[in-house]
């Protein structure tokens, strides 16, 4: 049964709560989110760019009122940038400032060995949390309340980083050599996203539950558009969603995503266009297409798009 920390009580509850923060999930999304939260497993979300992977994490954090911590992955990301780093400059500054105190401390020492011993006793003062610069992963682990941890575009990171994540995602603990092992105070809700630039290792996949988010079906997308722009006309929304669906089926460099559908709807509203004519589409095309070649292709297959 659901653990004490989860904010969701059932699949329907997930659906309702996500909808309350303007995210309309499919049945599958709701089920997976519920299961992940209830069993404290990370979710690995795959899907085309702009289908709402990152938005899902944002919506979960908003509807449960949890802080969201985001880690953007890229090639060359390492522990120092993702987990923690010692603040050398601060440590140095402090040693300078408390020089006198240190001198006092070792004033009574007769030999150098004794002085070293005395300073060593104070080591803890320098390798303490005060001088630790917490990066996103450590922040998520040590936070006093539960957080949503979003690890974005995990496929862009190096295999080494992926391996390093394993300890964190299975036991929710990190080991810092100077301080020992830190266990998470609250197990965060972890969402990993991937664009499938490369395949994720089996070991990491085993620790997550998997979710594939595709572009929404037409009626779902229409609901999303109407949710974001309440005063859009029924007929225009229909035409819009239909056209976007057709544009996505073209062989484009970059297919328009949900946020572009919404931007486009907004643009049409501002221009007070109530009927999607070829002229209107052609005029507003640069909202949807981000490459010149794509614009040309949509213009060429205009009648197919507006069918």
């Amino acid at each position, binding site marked *: 049964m659901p653990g004490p920390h989860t904010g969701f009580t059932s*699949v329907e509850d997930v659906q309702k709560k996500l909808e309350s923060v303007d995210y309309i999930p499919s049945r599958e999304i709701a*089920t997976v989110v*519920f299961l992940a939260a209830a*069993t404290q497993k990370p979710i690995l979300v*795959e899907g085309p760019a702009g289908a709402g992977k990152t938005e899902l994490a944002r919506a979960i954090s908003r509807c449960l009122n949890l802080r969201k911590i985001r880690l953007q992955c890229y090639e060359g990301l390492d522990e120092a940038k993702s987990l923690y780093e010692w603040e050398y400059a601060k440590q140095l500054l402090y040693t300078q400032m408390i020089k006198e105190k240190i001198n006092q401390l070792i004033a009574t020492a007769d030999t150098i060995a004794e002085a070293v011993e005395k300073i060593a006793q104070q080591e803890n003062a320098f390798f303490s949390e005060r001088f630790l610069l917490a990066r996103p992963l450590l922040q998520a682990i040590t936070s006093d309340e539960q957080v949503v941890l979003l690890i974005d575009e995990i496929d862009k990171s190096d295999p080494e980083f992926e391996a390093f994540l394993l300890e964190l995602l299975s036991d929710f603990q990190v080991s810092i050599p100077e301080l020992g092992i830190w266990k998470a105070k609250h197990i965060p809700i972890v969402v990993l996203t991937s664009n*499938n630039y*490369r395949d994720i290792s089996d070991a990491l996949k085993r620790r997550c539950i*998997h979710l594939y988010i595709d572009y929404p079906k037409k009626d779902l997308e229409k609901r999303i558009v109407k949710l974001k722009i309440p005063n859009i006309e029924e007929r225009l929304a229909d035409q819009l969603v239909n056209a976007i669906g057709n544009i996505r089926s073209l062989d484009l460099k970059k297919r328009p995503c949900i946020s572009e559908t919404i931007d486009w709807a907004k643009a049409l509203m501002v221009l007070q266009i109530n009927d999607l004519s070829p002229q209107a589409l052609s005029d507003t095309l640069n909202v949807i297409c981000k*490459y010149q070649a794509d614009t040309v292709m949509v213009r060429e297959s205009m009648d197919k798009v507006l069918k």
Partner: protein
Amino acid sequence: MLNLILNFVNACRASDLRVSTAEVIDCARHLEMVDVLDEAQFRSALRANFAKSRREQTEFDRLYGLFFHDMRPDVELDADCDPENTDKADMRHTIGQMRQEAGDDEITQAIMDFLAGDPIPYLRQIHRLETQTEESSQALKSNLSQLSSRLEVMLRINRTRNRLLQLMPDPISGGAPGRNRGMAGLLMERLETANRMLTQETRPNNDALKQVNAYEKKTLGIGERPFSNLTETEIIKMRSVIDQLVRKMKDIMSRRYAVRNRGALDVKKTLRAAQRYQGVPIEIVFRQRPLRKTRVVTLCDVSGSVWSAARFMLNMIYSMQDCFSDVKSFAFVAGPTNITDIFEKHDVNQAIEKVITDADINFNTHTDYGEMLTQFHRDHLNLLTQKTTLIIVGDARTNYQNPCEHLLDDMRARCRRVIWLNPEPEQFWGTGDSEMNTYKAYCHEVRPCRNLNQLANFIEDIVF
């Protein structure tokens, strides 16, 4: 319930979908939490735990449909059934009888198991069929052995169907009216499913595939001419354009070396250096940006059908070897030959000449991609690591021989990216003996590469 799931897991494993024990435990826990009577929830819970990537989802969906819809485990024949229900008893009797007739023929037994509601042995048979490689690769090579084993299974299914009709009174023409009808229908349905599974080819869903067709038309004229249509003078002109391209590529790489030392201040190293000057930071050390260590393995088809393009491809591979620190190059007609050394020791034109004349490549055989993959898989698999980009250049025309695509799948699992460059225009992919559409399912990226502009675009993409 748990038994049902375990049976399903066995079916998954039999068709090579990797499911670990930990995942089964997770799934069992998850099923306790959802409403299993709602199929959407039940299916999502299973899918989220057993199919961990988009590629595996097609296979999962197929098995799910087979197991929970076609096979209908609720009418399990081996389950303890009601003695009054003579249908089931009849059925078991019939199957038992056919089993005895079949003796120890493995495939027929698998079909019998399938009829009795246990698809696992049959799935295993099919999986074996799909990953079968030629045993006698020395003699006459063909794709026939795979086809003929398929045919054998099909013949056995037909035989079973006929026998079944004999043993069971024909449900339509009367016999025992109504009594055996449901069960006979079920058995026939199952046989049909078995037959369908045999003829259907399954390919992983690869919709994350990057397929680049559009490209910037930089140089018109020569840039748009297909490699195969170039005249002698144009080839010379082309060389100089490629030289420019290579110079540009080297520029980018050297610029990358130059900025590598312009990272943020490295406090640790600066402090260490300052110790020498009594704590005054005279030497300031910056953090080095690590260079991207790209490893590239290229496999280039140099057979007759792509020869005109291959020259330019070899040219490109040569310059890549110049730019990246770790490039291994192979050329093949049937088996791969390592040409890394030739490229390292000689000048461009000389090297390409040497590949054609000196390298140990048998130009007198037919192109055989399956053979190439088999040999590469056997001898050079250690070259592929998580940091390797595998670039295959070729038209994927296999002369109707076994494409061995499962080997490419295995290679994909080992490397970072698989990119396929095809010197044929896209509309010819999959026509005749081209297996491009088969191989496409196992690549991360495919692109037609038949003129200079497309080549230039590719080089830019890979360098940046």
